[in-house]
């Protein structure tokens, strides 16, 4: 009985860690691909996800992003 409980706990731990891993990976990808920056922009300006708001976001964002070098 105790052994099967241990197995369940171990399995849950693995599932939990896997979930955290994929959540972090997704968050990293969203940050790298500027989706998080757009979400923050929508929150900050209380705007909806529309063509116009994306255009506004790009305008604001590109003033700093365009100066970012890409490494060699």
């Amino acid at each position, binding site marked *: 009985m105790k052994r099967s409980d241990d197995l369940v706990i171990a399995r849950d731990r693995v599932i939990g860690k896997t979930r955290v891993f994929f959540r972090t990976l997704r968050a990293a990808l969203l*940050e790298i691909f500027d*989706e998080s920056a757009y979400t*923050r*922009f929508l929150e900050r300006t209380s705007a909806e996800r529309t*063509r116009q*708001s994306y*255009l506004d976001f*790009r305008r604001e964002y590109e003033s700093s992003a365009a100066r970012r*070098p*890409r490494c060699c």
Partner: protein
Amino acid sequence: MRIGRILAWLAVGVVGAFALATIAFRRHEAISAMWLVTAAICSYALGYRFYSKFIAAKVLALDAMRATPAERLENGRDFIRTNKWVVFGHHFAAIAGPGPLVGPVLAAQFGYLPGTLWILVGAVFAGCVQDFVILLFSVRRDGKSLGQMAREEIGKTAGTVAFISVISILIILLAVVALIIVNALKDSPWGAFTIGATIPIALLMGLYLRYLRPGRVLEASVLGFLLVVTAIFGGQWISQSTHAGAFTLAGTTLAILIIVYGFAASALPMWLLLAPRDYLSTFVKLGTIAILALGILLVRPTLQMPALTRFIDGSGPVFAGNLFPFAFITIACGAISGFHSLISSGTTPKMIAREPQTRMVGYGAMMAESFVGIMAIIAACTLQPGTYLAVNSGAGMVGGNPAAAVATISNWGFPITADQMAMMAHNVGEKTLFFRTGGAPAFALGMAKIFSDSLGGTAVMAIWYHFAIMFEALFILTVLDAGTRVGRFMLQDALGHIWKPLGRTSWYPSILVTSALMVGAWGYFLWQGIRDPLGGINSLWPLFGICNQLLAAVALCVATTIIVKMGRARYIWVTLGPLCWLVAITFSASWHKVFDPNPLIGLLAHARQLAAGPAVAGIQRRIFNDQLDAAVCALLVVLVSVIVIESAMQWISVVSGRKQPSTQEAPFVTTQYAQETM
């Protein structure tokens, strides 16, 4: 528990030492690439656990209680507290470029040993340290840039020199990466079609993001990736069809197309071309690096290249120059890259949530970049040395035609036949693989070999080869368009001091003028590389390596000055050691490039040789080009000498007590997230 840990780290040390000893001392028999992987992983583990921890605790005294600018200045735009793994991924995506892929491939002409050792030692003791300390110092100065820190901590001259160094390295970098692309795509209808197709694909992505699904970048990148893969198959069809002639382009034609592209990318709205291409490139880059690592682990290839080759004496056909200092200059980014200091003092410091995380992000991300360099060495060294040399040598270095090249290379003790080269070219869907200098085709060949060994065999080698070429070209074109735009902004900032309207970044005449100036500058060096009978890489890549390492020297001067001003002069060796090494290799390499009497190495000797030879058309221009390259090299050395001397004067006056140490750190504020687990 404690004893268990000690034993575990001892085991890591023993395994790492054994792997390094195997790499260094086993000669006359091929070794498995897994020895390089093992040595690398153990070196990084030990470096991170012990050396970076020592620097964090003793030298920098990282303080978990100190609020970072991301906390104090949080604005939801630039300053954002971000999960450390997310910042790590973001930082790695920004620092990973074509440099660690190309440099180690070129340096493989010395054998796998020198490159591997320098990538590991250089990364652990220099490159990772530079990225880490610059990131931390920028965090403590509200995310200031390297130039601003140089101006405030060393002096005004240092700030100006840093600016000139950055713009020079940008110009040389853009020329050399453009040359790599041209050499990879010339006379290759398959490659030219695939890379050409990425431009309309990026435009489509831009329109998709703007009009169809605003802001869904990952979705658009996946779609873009699928289209690019389709374009690879389309390229195969084109290369076998009657349209092949339209895409079989000479080097000069490709150079003109790339120059026009660079100008358009700099002047067009960013959302339309540059941003979607950047997303697509990042998507492919991260995916390909991951599958390359997986491929190496699955295939565990054997290295065909010897540990050391005869070319350590400086007679190499890929680039001329002795092991010291040219191996170090050539590898550049895989071990230490000055360019990283711009990223470490750019976006990343504004995202760090807690000070101790700078260790993982700064030191850790550079370790990952260094591992990319190790993978590049493995890819190059899995090729037969004869094949590697036939692909990477300029026509002027090995006899001028394939038959002479085969004879020359075989006489060096690296047997290769024209039939083998023809078969290899046929397998990857190319007409010829001779004289494809620049490193990219050799890397693509090695990568295709590893991939096809793990999936699909020889039948799909051509697809893998062109996938690798597409990956590198996409990578490089992103560096090219982003670099041109950054250079344009820098020029606008500088010219704005002369005439104000030129400084207005949205004023179209200013955009056109500065874009043309920037493209004209790197385009000029690209053109001279294309017309160079020795392949161009022979003179331009060392120049790029020198620029890059000189920028790293500037960053280390800033770091050393701050360490001294923090009252921690007893730990000055942490940054002063790598600085002295960089000064030694860059200054001696520069001396060789300018004054060496061997015309294959020394630019002035080469100019004299041309002047003494027959007066053929274009000779005056080639002489001028050599003199110009020599002047650029000498100018950079003089400028960096000024920074080194100015910094040393600061150190001496602080250490001798003549000057009170004071840094420009932002005032200490206690974090509100002290209870938060990091």
